[in-house]
């Protein structure tokens, strides 16, 4: 249970993350404790030691702290020059004190490095934590009462008397009496292209969510729910036209696997383009993103291998690991110190019982975590991977296309050499507005997968129009269409992301994740507030996604916004205005951080 620390005036629960390459988390933490032992340390001093990262909590009653960047500059301005180096080490053990502006700005003095990135995971206030739990238990108690008093209007199994019950009773109870209460917030059908705006099919329930009826009406909403990062979900334009042509040329499907007769020139072109896009030797593509993980991890791993997996990894990765028969250990989300500890123990102790050395050790992480909005700490992970001779499997489902100055994913964002990541996986569903997934890396890896992948042998190949959409959109991003349309989209997404996140911070709501991540989870904590917010947003013609237990920890119900290059500033302002209202009326302003008072500017297009 991650109940946040109590409100203390001198300890604001904010964790600033700055990534300084070549810094290992272990050192960061140690450095932090030293600072604490020393009492007050000026930020300037901390920062003059470039290879040390400190989790810095820069606050003091007397000192003003500005956490917001203005005009695109990431700055944590410590006015008055000094701040107390209060060290606060929670789950993310790696971080740097930021000093900029008035003090010596170490990260900024290295021009080629990425602008130091910020990630925030503000802790939940204790009162909220308690009320959230109480609210949840109240729901459960009322649910049981309801179940006891009234027969649920649900389908029953027929002709299966004497069979062992099919479902777990609590699971069934949960979906009937807890989930059902806000069931209307999910599975809302759409009837248009999921672009910047989306048309929702209107439905109502007359029985508190047991059943839904369609009213026949439609409702146009601003779309912050779909993974349409670069705005390639389009019914017109080059992508759509090319896809239509490919249907005419290759039909909708081939009805075969790639080992048999499922390969058409379009697949070869797609694989070649993907490899070029990512800057690696080769790539292999599959018809479904989920299956890319679930069907390829098992052939890369075997019993006797160890996988060290981030606790927030996607279900498809977890399924793939389960199918592989390898031993899995979990490290705390994005916590480099914990990762190193697990790695070190694993290598030193070897396999359990026998103590034999592991055959291979894999680190499995994601680029952008879809529920947290956080970004993998790639340079540190790579440093650790090299130190302990592990292999790195990076799932870029949400980051490819959406991150980096050229849209090539987190590697591009951090300026990492693609050869430093052993297995690059990603999907085409999100940024490319299509479907399917890829695995890219060395030719040796890809050849191995071509022969051994479950999907290559048994699953049908990607539909040609789906492949064509990817090829066309990828070319646009790379600028191979002769325009700067792709680059513009990448920039637009980055601008939208920073603007939207900063405005939300300013509003005083708690949002998770990295400053440049287009996935923005807004914490509402309480189960009932998920429903309230999603419904209110829908009423105001905004489509957003609510996520609650079991997809998130019990206490961390959230609303997730996915930004898109298709959004304009006006649309975002509209959402922000509505959110401001909702945050006020529903009490979402949980943040205890100081807020930036000035006007947050939307970055200039030419910047």
């Amino acid at each position: 249970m991650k109940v946040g620390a109590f409100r203390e005036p001198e300890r604001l629960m904010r964790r600033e993350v700055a990534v300084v390459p070549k810094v290992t988390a272990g050192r960061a933490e140690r450095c932090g404790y030293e600072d604490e032992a020393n009492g007050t340390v000026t930020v300037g001093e901390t920062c003059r030691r470039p290879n040390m990262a400190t989790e810095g909590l820069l606050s003091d009653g007397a000192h003003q702290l500005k956490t917001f960047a203005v005009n695109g500059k990431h700055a944590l301005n410590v006015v008055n020059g000094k701040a107390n180096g209060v060290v606060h080490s929670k789950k993310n053990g790696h971080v740097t004190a930021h000093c900029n502006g008035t003090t010596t700005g170490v990260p900024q003095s290295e021009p080629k490095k990425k602008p130091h990135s910020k990630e925030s995971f503000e802790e939940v206030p204790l009162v909220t934590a308690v009320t959230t739990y109480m609210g949840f238990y109240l729901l459960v108690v009322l649910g049981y009462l309801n179940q006891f008093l009234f027969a649920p209007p649900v389908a029953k199994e027929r002709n299966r008397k004497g069979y062992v019950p099919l479902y777990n009773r609590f699971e069934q109870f949960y979906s009937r009496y807890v989930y059902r209460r806000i069931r209307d917030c999910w599975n809302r059908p759409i009837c248009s292209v999921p672009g910047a705006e989306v048309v929702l099919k209107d439905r109502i329930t007359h029985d508190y969510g047991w059943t839904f009826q369609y009213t026949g009406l439609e409702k146009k909403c601003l779309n912050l729910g779909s993974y349409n990062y670069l705005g390639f979900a389009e019914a017109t334009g080059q992508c759509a036209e090319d896809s239509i042509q490919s249907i005419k040329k290759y039909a909708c499907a081939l009805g075969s696997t790639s080992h048999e007769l499922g390969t058409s020139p379009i697949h070869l072109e797609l694989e070649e383009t993907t490899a070029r896009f990512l800057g690696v030797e080769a790539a292999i593509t599959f018809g479904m993103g989920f299956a890319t993980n679930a069907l390829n991890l098992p052939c890369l791993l075997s019993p006797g291998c160890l996988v060290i997996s981030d606790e927030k990894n996607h279900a498809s990765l977890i399924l793939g690991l389960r199918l592989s028969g390898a031993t899995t250990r979990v490290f705390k989300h994005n916590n480099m110190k914990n990762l190193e500890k697990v790695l070190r123990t694993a290598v030193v102790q070897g396999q359990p019982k026998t103590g034999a050395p592991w055959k291979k050790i894999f680190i499995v992480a994601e680029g952008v975590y879809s529920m947290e909005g956080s970004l993998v700490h790639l340079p540190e992970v790579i440093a650790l991977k090299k130190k302990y001779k592990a292999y790195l499997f990076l799932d870029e489902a949400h980051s490819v296309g959406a991150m980096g100055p050229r849209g090539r994913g987190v590697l591009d964002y951090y300026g990492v050499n693609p050869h430093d990541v052993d297995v690059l996986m990603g999907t085409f569903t999100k940024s490319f507005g299509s479907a399917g997934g890829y695995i890219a890396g060395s030719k040796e890896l890809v050849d191995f997968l071509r022969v051994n992948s479950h999907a290559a042998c048994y699953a049908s190949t990607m539909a040609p129009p789906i492949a064509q959409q990817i090829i066309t959109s990828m070319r646009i991003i790379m600028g191979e269409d002769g325009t700067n349309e792709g680059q513009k989209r990448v920039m637009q997404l980055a601008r939208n992301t920073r603007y939207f996140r900063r405005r939300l911070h300013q509003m005083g709501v708690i949002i998770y994740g990295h400053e440049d991540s287009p996935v923005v989870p807004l914490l509402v904590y309480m189960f009932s507030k998920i429903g309230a917010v999603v419904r209110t947003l829908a009423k105001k013609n905004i489509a957003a996604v609510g996520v609650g237990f079991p997809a998130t920890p019990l206490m961390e119900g959230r609303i997730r916004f996915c930004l898109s290059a298709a959004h304009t500033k006006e649309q975002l302002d509209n959402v922000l205005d509505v959110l401001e209202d909702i945050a006020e009326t529903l009490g979402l302003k949980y943040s205890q951080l100081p807020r930036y008072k000035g006007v947050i500017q939307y970055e200039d297009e030419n910047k």
Partner: protein
Amino acid sequence: MGSYWLPTSINGFLGDIKDASLLHFVLEGFLVAWLIWFIFRKSYKSHHRHSLSKEEEDKIISEWTPEPLVKSTPQDHPALKPHVVTGKAGHYIDVDGKPCLNLATHNYLSFVDKPQVEECAIQSIRKYGVGSCGPRGFYGTVDVHLELEEKLAKFMGMEEACVYAYGFSTVASAIPAYAKRNDIIFVDEQVNFAIQKGLDASRSRICYFKHNDVEDLEKLMLEFEAEAGKNPRKAKVTRRFLVIEGIYMNTGKICPLPALLELAHRFKCRTILDENVSFGTLGETGRGVTEFYNINRADVDLIVGSMEWALGSIGGFCVGSSFIVEHQRLSGLGYCFSASLPPLLTSAAMASLEEIEKNPELITVLHKQCQLVHDALANLSEFGYSMSGDIQSPVKHLYLTNPPQDAEKHRSLLHSISQYCIKNGVAIIPASYLDHMEARPRTPSLRITVNVDLTPAEVEAASKVLQQASSEFSLS
């Protein structure tokens, strides 16, 4: 403050000892001894764990050499040089630029290149774009998904259907949505690979019975029953499942459904029926193996179908009662956590389904072609081929009667025969398996698929080519 309470409490303690009964004394002593042992054991263990110094640990780390990321792949493996299909994989198919009669891809009803189906897909792109950009729960449910689900449920005469984005993931997700650890699943040993992965994911106990052998299944079930009788408490929470295919992709044979269902009913097993081949091909109107045997579909708990073979699109679906299917919307991993099926492929599948409903005679024609191909292949026995597959099945396997002993040679011979056939204008390919991954060894074979548009002359010609191949590679 210590100086005040310490003597007092020691005095009290000594007083307590004096007053204590012998039993009390022994018990306390025992407790203290146990405590000492406990602490000692614990410290011994942790001592052992921390016995390595940092240098020693570093040494272990520097000495450890992991296996390479992947084993090296032989560069002559056929999968590295796949055939390239230029154009549509219809009744005829261009393999590496050579036009061939298509007996290889799964296009039983010729929907892959049907203009109506293509037109629907194109219209769908014009309305919805290409991708759905989200999982079903998060604005990835497009109205065409609902429409298709309704049509599928109606077509199969069942309450509810749910559509998956990928054929492989359909059954592989459906099984673990119900079967969990400690459950038992009875499975035919020839089930396809997707089912096997579903079984793995469920972590249930798996009992394979001999292919289509009802007696063997009964034997296994009786054994289990006897075992369950010994531990009734466990048996009370052990769910039982029977997983079978309508037509087995790996053998082309139809399952003896009535007898299997009778057994399932007797032993209170729920049945999951994978109709990836039989959907749209078996039964008078293409409603699958249940129609073929004229069985009430409600007797089967869950029917899983593919839209990738008969319907000429991508994806899969499950149909059953609402009680069963609804559960997958939250528990089917491939349903919940994957982007939904692109609308254009949904529309294409829907167009194909409508076509089957409109022209059920298509199925009758297909059955005729199956018979035709069946007869032609059966006649190849004197040329060193033996056939597996039932008459009505659109999938047949050709085995070599006298195969080379060496498995590798066996496979490469089949590959050569396939190449020969392609060179001579007939696309026939060996069924591909990952031998080391399959639950049971699969006999290498040439897999022949039947298409509704085949003519007797074409079948004759194909059979000629196989005969020539036989003499070319001296098979008989």
